[in-house]
């Protein structure tokens, strides 16, 4: 078990290094190939040569890509200094970079944005897991009935709706027309009701999409499981239906759901870009958009890394949990 965890952690680190290197390459190699200057791009359109040169030195854009990569990675552990144009900016460890647009440590920006995304995703996850799995199980058990049909058509409609459209519709109806909820995010530390009210619409909107996906997946898995021999055996030996379904069937049904849940949770915590943009929430997803629209390389690099880290760590956790839920799984 321990050896397995260590090996997986090693793979996680390698994967994150690859993601970082690829992201860095985009901003370094593509402008180079197409003949534009990355430094000039980051400074903006009406920049004078001196400030372009200063940013080139500070960001080390003149260095070979592997050197830049090394600076970024070592900065996370020991901090780094940005020197150029006559001044030096120190970024203390853990340094995920320094944003020259906002003149802030990227770590600070990430720390500010993280609670927003986390509140939104956790709240939605609780909702969608409850709604989606319940709907899927009921649908599978009542297969072919009106309940099943209605649930599955609703679920199909749910997965066919772009989330930013659902978000705007929800805001139009519940905020503009009915005035039931507030507009903006309030940290939970300031006011619980404000926090709850501000996040209610994002929760419901995000949960609707994911509940629809989970209902479809749960129903399909449950139907497959119910056709297995061991379910027949369990029934044949006279177990009450509640035990057959609740214990035997649910356990196998939940295994694939858990995998997907872990991955979705990881990906969303890493940045629910669309939902955050539609609801103007300033979480990690909002930060990502800000980074890209302002061509803030250090910010983009950091957010990409965090997002990827959330996905791979979630995957690892799911794989470990597997061994707990499903005794057939042996980690090797």
């Amino acid at each position, binding site marked *: 078990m321990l050896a397995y965890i260590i090996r997986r952690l090693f793979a996680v680190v390698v*994967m994150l290094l690859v993601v970082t290197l690829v992201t860095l390459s985009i901003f370094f190699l593509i402008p180079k190939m197409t003949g534009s200057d990355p430094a000039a791009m980051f400074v903006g359109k009406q920049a004078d040569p001196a400030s372009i040169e200063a940013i080139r030195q500070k960001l080390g854009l003149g260095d070979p890509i592997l050197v830049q990569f090394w600076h970024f990675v070592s900065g996370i552990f020991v901090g780094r200094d940005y020197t150029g144009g006559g001044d030096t900016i120190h970024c203390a460890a853990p340094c995920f970079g320094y944003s020259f647009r906002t003149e802030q440590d990227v770590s600070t920006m990430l720390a500010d944005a993280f609670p927003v995304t986390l509140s939104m995703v956790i709240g939605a996850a609780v909702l969608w897991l409850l709604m989606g799995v319940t709907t899927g199980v009921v649908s599978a058990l009542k297969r072919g009935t009106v309940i099943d049909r209605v649930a599955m058509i609703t679920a199909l*409609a749910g997965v066919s709706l772009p989330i930013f459209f659902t978000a705007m519709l929800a805001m139009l109806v519940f905020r503009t027309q009915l005035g039931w909820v507030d507009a903006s995010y309030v940290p939970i530390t300031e006011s619980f009701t404000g926090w709850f009210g501000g996040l209610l619409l994002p929760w419901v909107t995000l949960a609707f999409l994911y509940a629809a996906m989970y209902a479809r997946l749960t129903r399909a898995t449950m139907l497959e499981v119910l056709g297995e021999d061991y379910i027949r055996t369990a029934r044949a030996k006279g177990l009450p239906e509640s035990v057959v379904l609740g214990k035997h069937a649910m356990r196998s049904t939940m295994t694939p759901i858990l995998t997907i849940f872990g991955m979705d949770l990881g990906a969303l915590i890493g940045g629910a870009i669309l939902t955050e943009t539609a609801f103007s929430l300033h979480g990690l997803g909002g930060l990502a958009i800000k980074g890209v629209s302002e061509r803030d390389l250090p910010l983009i690099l950091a957010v990409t890394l965090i997002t990827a880290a959330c996905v791979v760590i979630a995957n690892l956790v799911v794989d470990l949990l597997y061994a707990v839920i499903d005794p057939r799984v042996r980690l090797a």
Partner: protein
Amino acid sequence: MTAPLHETSAGEATATVDGAPDAPGTPDKSGSGGKAIEGRSPWKIAWTRLKRDKLALAGAFVVIFLILVAIFAPVIVGLLGHPPDEFHEDQIDPLFGTPIGSWGGINGDFLLGVEPVNGRDVFSRIVYGARISLLVAFLAAVFAVFLGTILGIIAGYFGGWIDAALSRVMDVMLAFPQLLFTIALVSVLPNELLGLDGSGVRIAALVLVIGFFGWPYVGRIVRGQTLSLRNREYVEAAQSLGAGRFYILRRELLPNLIAPITVYATLMIPTNILTEAALSFLGAGVKPPTASWGQMLSTAITTYESDPLFMVIPGLAIFITVLAFNLFGDGVRDALDPKGSR
């Protein structure tokens, strides 16, 4: 899943079991009445089933309709609309920037109303938007399926270090934040590249990026299928007859992979449409003035409280298109599923 396939007759169900992909052309004695025994390929069986699935057929009709709309966009707009880039400031309230007419300015002249601020014809922009949406989604799906099939089959068939390497690559790609990566990539693309203009560069970039992030999903499925197929008796038989590896890949394995690949490709198109819309919504889609649905929604984000219809119409366009493809795709999946119980 929503397909009414459990209503199929008993004869149909038996034929289904016999018609599993690795037993092609099994004769079906039950359904043909007094006629001579007739072989039915799995594809014929699937087609028979698909024809009975009303929801899937409805989806298929909408899909065909949308494809025709996209192809004949200039004709349709010529007949029923105004040029998509033409400004109609006379339709706009100069004070608020919203359409003068009620319901987003819908009238006999502007079938779906006008855009806020500059008064462009929403109908024309929706019709032209269908082109971008479908073009990008189709091409990206083709690209993803092509790459995914080749690499998946190679990984599954050759195994060993090739499989290990390809599987690693797929893992990394699945962990990659696709939306973020794409908008970052698009932001550094130049306006002109290899003789393509701005919109051309963006369309090519969208197709390549969406397709490139799509292939690992296909690759994983194809790899898994190949792994389970490569030790089947008929592959062994081909090997013992002296068939080469390439021959086995092409003639023995690939035909049996077509069903899952078809299902995945059909279900990939709606996902791609949503991704394209999302990217356009985030400003990484085709460049204005070229119309796209996602971009219309992102314009609407500032005006939807005063002019809701300009937000609702492109949203519905995306929804209907994706729903139609999903209904059709689910139908294809159920029809090609050898178990055929759902």
